[in-house]
């Protein structure tokens, strides 16, 4: 038997996806099913004067129409509650978030009414017949502008539109260090809003069983147990044990499917009210105005640096756009996942950061791939580049000067986090070699001599993945612990079913988790099935986000496997009439034998059967072979990366040609190199998307101008060169797999690296900074302005 860990096992889930046999929520059809469509606000801010549903209700094929008030008042003794926020920073202002708007609408796309009809087409037609009288009000869309005097209030209860203010670090010490520094580089910039655009739009379906008074909800969620908890405790008030939430195959999430959404409340309400199963599937247009969006910061930063390149202090103030309502984890992103990352891979001695979370008349903002950490990396790396330019130093040399030394781990940063492990020097050596950094600089020099605009960008980033442990997470504001559960059920024939609380929506858990378990027992990977995404099958789960599944979900499985191996040893010892201490589990062969007597051996399958035959077990041992574990990690894991991008800009058009890209990542021990490389490649593409193309733009009235794929520029394959990948492996010291998060690292580094390259290309023209996305138009204008004697 070969071992699977560390090998590129082909993804076991792919044959069903490739053959169109995946089962998504949208594929679900139940007898007598009805279909829901949501009437949405075309205005960003307005008073609802009246809603007339008479004509819609009269349309042939319409079963029912419900408004926000109907949901609050309820029917037949059940009603809907406000959607809660699951991350409560100190002094958080948390206005109600009704599943359908009552009295006022607060962003374009805010739900006003739901139609339930015999077909999705009829439901859509009926939306046109709902007459909503809206009285338009002025809107505010800018995170900082929302706090200005006289700005329209999103919620009357939130003065200055302030949801929270979250400071971290010693501001006095930072100011003092800045005043003593040889130089202080300052920058004010925007980290623009992004829209996730998962391949599968969100969907929800529900069926109420009056016989057992229980509810089944199918939803495109990254964490079905959390949705069940919130439905039970807050939004539907149905006892948690009477709710089953199923997240079947889900076509990508990137964070946007973590959160508890209004439709997960509206659809079950409607199903119960009309006594039929109901399904709702978002259109792509709805995704643009209802899926939680990402980033959207305005930031002022100051970095102190001495003549020799030593970084002395960092001071940051950020205004973070929360959108119209607090999404489930909205306040977490620009606080504990952002400011705590300001140390990067550097030993900056003092750091202060603060975030103002503000309400605006826009779609709620929450985690999007990287979630706070790309914003932090972009900030730190952009400031480091500016410092290098100020000093006339090579940006890599300046970085090297400030790296946390390899012998300093575990390393306590000035912003709360304790890095578990790392080897940034090795990372730098490898990326300089892989990218040919020195020759890139020589090429650049030659190109510049010809007047060409060639830039080399460098980004070295840290990620804090798998937020943990629960005691710390809850202390920071999480409303639930951040452990994971994993159960292993060994069947009498030695086949294995694994039940994990992690959720795969593209990550390949059905492969990587099977690799882990197969190796634990020394059995064929085909004998292991991974079950996830069903609260009635899986004991409990926290779900998949924040690059947590391998390190936490995978470790829970290792813990359960260890318990099972121990039980198998006891059975083997009993039957071979030897002592347990003498039993040797051969994980290559899947056998247990007596040390020194290889003939006295039992196979995994023999022992599995013995456990249910149960006629010859050790005294007092229970029959059966099933174990469950809840693994609460000791710390985050801290992956790191160094990426290099080379660009050339067409001076006539401003167009950026990304000519080469190299990435070295350290995600600890790698379970499946192919899957990790795929995640890092995809992450890089997404990160470059932010640097060059993507932009969620609202006009001053709160209309989303980039509300479709015609106007929101997603990255495409033709925008990329071949990407060179390599890695180093510094295992996490505190989880049994030595794994660190891999899902977000590419995104975190790529945005910074490509922005760095473009700004490096433009530096000779005197362009100091340009906000992303670095579109041809924006660069063309900067070049033109530079030609007229001024940069930005």
């Amino acid at each position, binding site marked *: 038997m070969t071992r699977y860990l560390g090998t590129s096992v082909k993804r076991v889930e792919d044959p069903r996806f490739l053959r169109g046999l995946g089962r998504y929520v949208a594929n679900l059809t139940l007898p007598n099913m009805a279909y829901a469509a949501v009437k949405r606000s075309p205005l960003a801010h307005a008073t609802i004067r009246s809603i007339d549903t008479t004509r819609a209700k009269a349309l042939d094929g319409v079963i029912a129409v419900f408004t926000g008030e109907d949901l609050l008042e309820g029917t037949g003794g059940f009603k809907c509650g406000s959607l809660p926020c699951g991350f409560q920073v100190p002094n958080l202002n948390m206005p109600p978030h009704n599943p359908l708007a009552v009295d006022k609408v607060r962003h374009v796309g805010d739900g006003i009414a739901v139609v339930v009809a015999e077909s999705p087409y009829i439901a859509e*037609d009926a*939306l046109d017949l709902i007459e909503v009288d809206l009285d338009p009000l002025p809107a505010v869309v800018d995170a900082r502008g929302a706090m200005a005097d006289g700005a329209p209030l999103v919620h009357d209860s939130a003065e200055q539109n302030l949801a929270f203010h979250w400071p971290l670090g010693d501001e006095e010490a930072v100011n003092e260090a800045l005043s003593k520094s040889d130089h202080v580089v300052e920058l004010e910039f925007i980290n623009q809003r992004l829209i996730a655009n998962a391949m599968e739009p969100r969907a929800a379906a529900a069926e109420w069983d009056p016989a057992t008074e229980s509810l089944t909800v199918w939803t495109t969620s990254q964490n079905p147990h959390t949705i069940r908890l919130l439905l039970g405790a807050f939004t539907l008030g149905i006892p948690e044990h009477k709710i089953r939430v199923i997240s079947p195959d889900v076509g990508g999430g990137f964070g946007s499917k973590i959160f508890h959404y209004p439709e997960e409340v509206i659809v079950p309400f409607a199903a119960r009210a009309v006594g039929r199963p109901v399904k709702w599937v978002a*259109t792509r247009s709805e995704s643009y105005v209802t899926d939680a969006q990402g980033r959207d910061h305005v930031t002022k930063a100051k970095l102190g640096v001495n003549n020799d390149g030593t970084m002395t202090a960092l001071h940051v103030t950020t205004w973070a756009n929360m959108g119209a309502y607090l999404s489930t984890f909205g306040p977490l992103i620009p606080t504990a996942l952002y400011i705590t990352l300001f140390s990067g891979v550097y030993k900056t001695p003092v750091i202060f950061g603060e975030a103002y979370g503000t309400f605006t008349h826009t779609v709620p903002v929450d985690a999007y791939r990287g979630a706070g950490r790309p914003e932090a990396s972009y900030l730190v790396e952009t400031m480091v580049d500016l410092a290098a330019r100020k000093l006339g130093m090579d940006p890599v040399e300046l970085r090297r000067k400030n790296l946390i030394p390899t012998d300093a781990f575990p390393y306590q940063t000035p912003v709360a986090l304790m890095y578990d492990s790392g080897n940034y020097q090795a990372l730098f050596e490898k990326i300089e070699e892989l990218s040919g950094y020195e020759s890139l600089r020589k090429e650049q020099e030659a190109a510049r001599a010809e007047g060409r605009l060639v830039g080399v960008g460098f980004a070295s980033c840290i990620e804090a993945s798998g937020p943990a442990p629960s005691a710390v997470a809850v202390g920071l504001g999480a409303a639930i612990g951040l452990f994971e559960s994993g159960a292993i059920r060994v069947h009498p024939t030695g086949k294995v079913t694994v039940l994990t609380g992690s959720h795969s929506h593209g990550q390949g858990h059905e492969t990587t988790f099977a690799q882990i378990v197969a190796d634990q027992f020394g059995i064929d990977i085909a004998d292991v099935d991974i079950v996830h995404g069903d609260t009635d099958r899986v004991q409990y789960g926290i779900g998949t986000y924040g690059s947590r599944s391998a390190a936490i979900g995978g470790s829970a499985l290792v813990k359960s496997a260890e318990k099972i191996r121990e039980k198998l040893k006891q059975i083997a010892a009993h039957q071979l009439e030897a002592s347990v201490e003498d039993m040797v589990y051969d994980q290559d062969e899947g056998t247990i034998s007596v040390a020194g007597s290889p003939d006295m051996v039992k196979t995994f399958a023999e022992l599995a059967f013995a456990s249910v035959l149960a006629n010859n077990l050790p005294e007092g041992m229970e029959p059966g072979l099933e174990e469950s574990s809840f693994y609460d990690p000791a710390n985050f894991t801290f992956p790191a990366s160094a990426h290099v991008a080379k660009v050339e800009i067409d001076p006539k058009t401003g167009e950026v040609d990304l000519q080469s890209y190299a990435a070295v990542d350290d995600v600890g021990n790698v379970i499946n190199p192919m899957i990790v490389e795929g995640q890092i490649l995809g992450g890089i593409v997404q990160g470059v998307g932010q640097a060059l193309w993507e932009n969620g733009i609202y006009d001053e009235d709160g209309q989303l101008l980039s509300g479709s794929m015609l106007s929101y520029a997603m990255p495409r394959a033709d925008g990329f060169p071949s990407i060179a990948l390599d890695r180093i492996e510094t295992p996490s010291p505190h989880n049994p797999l030595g794994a660190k998060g891999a899902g977000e690292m590419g995104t975190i580094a790529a945005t910074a690296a490509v922005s760095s390259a473009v700004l490096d290309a433009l530096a000779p023209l005197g362009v100091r900074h340009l906000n992303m996305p670095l579109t041809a138009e924006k660069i063309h204008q900067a070049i033109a302005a530079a030609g007229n004697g001024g940069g930005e």
Partner: protein
Amino acid sequence: MMYPRPFEYVRAGSVEEALDLKSKTGGRFIAGGHSLLPMMKIRVTSPETLVDIGRL
């Protein structure tokens, strides 16, 4: 919105038939649909009849 309003669909077997169907129904030609269908789906336009000339 991604669902068009209800419409009739006819396929023309010849150029003459296509012209005839269009004048009779007042509908719109559809060939590939890359421009028209998205506009119908977001309900910017809602022709009562589509005359398919895709196979001519």
